[in-house]
């Protein structure tokens, strides 16, 4: 169980104190164990900021350069730590700037609490200055939201917000607080929320379903596991490993599941999905039992659903009942937290090794190596490849770094080649595919896990979407390593234009600024690599730096990411070129 800090015990006493709503907000955050939050001030949230000034020694507020940056930083923090990330903004434009990050957190199940200021309750609905219906706007992209109009609602709503954000399948919660509620005084008392009547975070586990699942798995000749982020969110890495090891099942990750199992684990057969590995995609349509663990059959994973694993019986270990049968019909659904369900199932599993079946994956890996990996990691052509940059990062970090990626070709290359030895090491925007995610998310990750090396791998396009967060790094000294893979294109879109639009490169050419000068403008160490012989040293130098560091690598302009499953194709139609 979590140990209570002194502060918390103090706050949970029944003795009430008369304070303002704004101070109550801060006290609630402290009671929830928050010591760091990201945000941007403005008129409607000023009373809370004024309290933050008073509580600086206990609660550190990081001023990002844009509210979107605050949400992504909170996400990065949450993903690196498993704790709830907190972002704060003022009403109107401040609040709407949070939406991209909230939507990203919703689809990637990231626990986050966003607090927004709102105009006074008497002005609600009057189109007052900086009034927006942020509760209405955020409804489709939050797990829960609430507008507070009276100070005495603050403790209960805040407690509920944190409970809902972190429990069950985590997600973002937004609490909107009118300005009058921030000023009002009331008798403050705080009690943590442990249940909400209408909300069952984890569905009841059924022994019957576990038995049925185990029977299918035990009798399978070609079982295949695809796991997702549910393993990480459920902190079930050990249970998961024990499970696949006992039954000897070849296992592949989704994009967000990466790092739950060390990359070099003998049963790890790669990543599934549009730019995943050849063998797991191809053999999805050869297995006899497909075991999905904490994943949701995203369309980027399944390709054409009507041709996805039709031959296989499907077992789905899942915490969210709404995901069962949503995209892929299951034969057995095992509801519950995978940490619990895998533990209960383990003793019933038959020990097995499936050597020949595993060998089939390895045979296809060799095909992928010859056709793709060799050229990516050991190129003989002149231009630098994105793959060899990732390889150098692996070597310099010994697979111990947290790799934060943005969205595009570099993201897929990094996901394919980054080596992870430790869980919670892969932070990327999966479901929403939000360009601009990586730089602020890396700041959050570094602050959440200061003892770890954090390397952000970003495209020249996405970098410029949140480049202003270099200012946040300057001010906070967050020692993130930024690697921009510059191909002077919106690479991923250009790849599609090349393959499916006759090379008509409509609006994907990027004329870029002098990134080194920009980094230097923010007083950051910076270096640029254009030649292969300089790469290893440059990456080493970056990794050895104790401070934030910017490295631009000018890579080949028109390189493509393969394998690839074109939209609408079957996973077994995965293309090697």
């Amino acid at each position, binding site marked *: 169980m979590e140990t209570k800090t002194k502060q918390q015990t103090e706050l949970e006493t029944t003795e009430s104190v008369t304070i303002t709503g704004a101070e109550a907000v801060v006290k609630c955050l402290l009671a929830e164990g928050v010591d760091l939050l990201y945000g941007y001030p403005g008129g409607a949230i000023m009373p809370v900021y004024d309290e933050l000034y008073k509580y600086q020694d206990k609660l550190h507020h990081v001023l990002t350069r844009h509210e979107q940056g605050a949400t992504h930083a909170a996400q990065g923090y949450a993903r690196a730590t498993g704790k709830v990330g907190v972002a704060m903004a003022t009403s109107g434009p401040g609040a709407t700037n949070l939406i991209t990050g909230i939507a990203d957190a919703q689809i990637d199940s990231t626990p986050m609490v966003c607090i927004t200021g709102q105009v006074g309750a008497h002005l609600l609905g009057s189109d007052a200055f900086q009034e927006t219906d942020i509760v209405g706007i955020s*409804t489709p992209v939050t797990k829960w939201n609430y507008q507070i109009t009276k100070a005495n609602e603050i403790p209960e709503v805040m407690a509920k917000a944190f409970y809902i954000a972190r429990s069950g399948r985590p997600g973002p919660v937004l609490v909107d607080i009118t300005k009058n509620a921030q000023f009002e005084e009331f008798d403050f008392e705080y009690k943590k929320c442990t249940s909400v009547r209408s909300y069952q975070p984890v569905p009841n586990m059924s022994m019957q379903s576990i038995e049925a699942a185990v029977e299918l798995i035990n009798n399978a000749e070609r079982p295949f596991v695809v796991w997702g982020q549910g393993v990480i969110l459920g902190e079930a890495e050990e249970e998961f490993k024990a499970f696949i090891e006992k039954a000897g099942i070849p296992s592949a990750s989704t994009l967000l599941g990466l790092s739950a199992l060390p990359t070099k684990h003998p049963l790890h057969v790669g990543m599934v999905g549009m730019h995943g590995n050849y063998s797991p995609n191809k053999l999805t349509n050869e297995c006899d039992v497909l075991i999905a663990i904490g994943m949701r059959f995203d369309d980027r994973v399944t390709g054409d659903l009507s041709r996805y694993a039709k031959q296989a019986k499907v077992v789905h270990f899942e915490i969210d009942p*709404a995901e069962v049968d*949503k995209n892929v019909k299951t034969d057995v659904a095992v509801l519950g937290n995978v940490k619990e369900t895998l533990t209960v199932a383990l003793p019933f599993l038959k020990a097995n090794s499936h050597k020949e079946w595993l060998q089939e994956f390895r045979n296809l890996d060799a095909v992928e190596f010859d056709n793709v990996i060799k050229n990516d990691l050991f190129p003989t052509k002149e231009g630098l490849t994105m793959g060899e940059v990732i390889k150098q990062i692996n070597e310099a970090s010994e697979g111990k770094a947290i790799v934060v990626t943005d969205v595009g070709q570099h993201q897929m290359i990094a996901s394919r080649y980054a080596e992870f030895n430790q869980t919670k090491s892969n932070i990327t925007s999966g479901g929403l595919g939000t360009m601009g995610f990586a730089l602020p998310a890396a700041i959050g990750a570094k602050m959440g896990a200061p003892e770890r090396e954090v390397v952000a791998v970003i495209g020249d396009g996405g970098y410029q979407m949140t480049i202003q967060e270099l200012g946040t790094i300057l001010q906070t000294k967050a020692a993130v390593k930024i690697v921009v893979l510059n191909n002077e294109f919106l690479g991923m879109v250009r790849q599609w234009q090349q393959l499916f639009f006759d090379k008509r490169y409509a609006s994907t050419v990027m004329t870029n600024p002098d990134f080194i000068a920009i980094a230097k403008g923010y007083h950051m160490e910076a270096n640029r690599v254009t030649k292969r012989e300089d790469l290893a040293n440059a990456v080493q130098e970056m990794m050895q730096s104790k401070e934030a560091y910017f490295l631009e690598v000018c890579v080949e302009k028109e390189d493509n990411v393969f394998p690839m499953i074109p939209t609408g194709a079957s996973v077994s139609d995965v293309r090697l070129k």
Partner: protein
Amino acid sequence: MSTKNTYTISIYTENNVGLLNRISAIFLRRHLNIESVNVSKSEIKSVSRFTLLVKVTEEQVKKIIGQIEKQVEVIKAFYHTDEATVYQESCLFKLSTDLLIQNDEIQTIINQSKSRVININKNFFVLEKSGTKEEVEELYHILDKHGIMQFVRSGRIAITKDEMPVSKLLQLIKA
């Protein structure tokens, strides 16, 4: 399998603001039309009940129920076919008072359709009728010939023939 049916969806929820927005958004995202909505108190204190009427396939309605139940403030959602429910709609007609005086047919219509006059003055009278959609429609067609000044009907409300074990569920949660 993929034929569309009329389903009555019953949703038991906390009585909080904003929930109608969350629930309707689920239909909006899937481009599904809601034929009618009714929100009211339920048999359980401080628990609201939504009754929605939709025309979708069974597979669709199952997925919708999953998404609805996922909402934090939803206690439980159910779906039922017409056969599994007893349902009613209510409607009001505004008609000219002259009709009552000049046309004896109207009295017969009122009696036979089991509707009742709930308000009358020298210009108009208001006729109320509860029944199935078909019964309401039939009366509409008959009255239409005589001139309807205003017409309004409510959403469907329905009681299921099966039990909906929400109270039990709530007790379990409390225990």
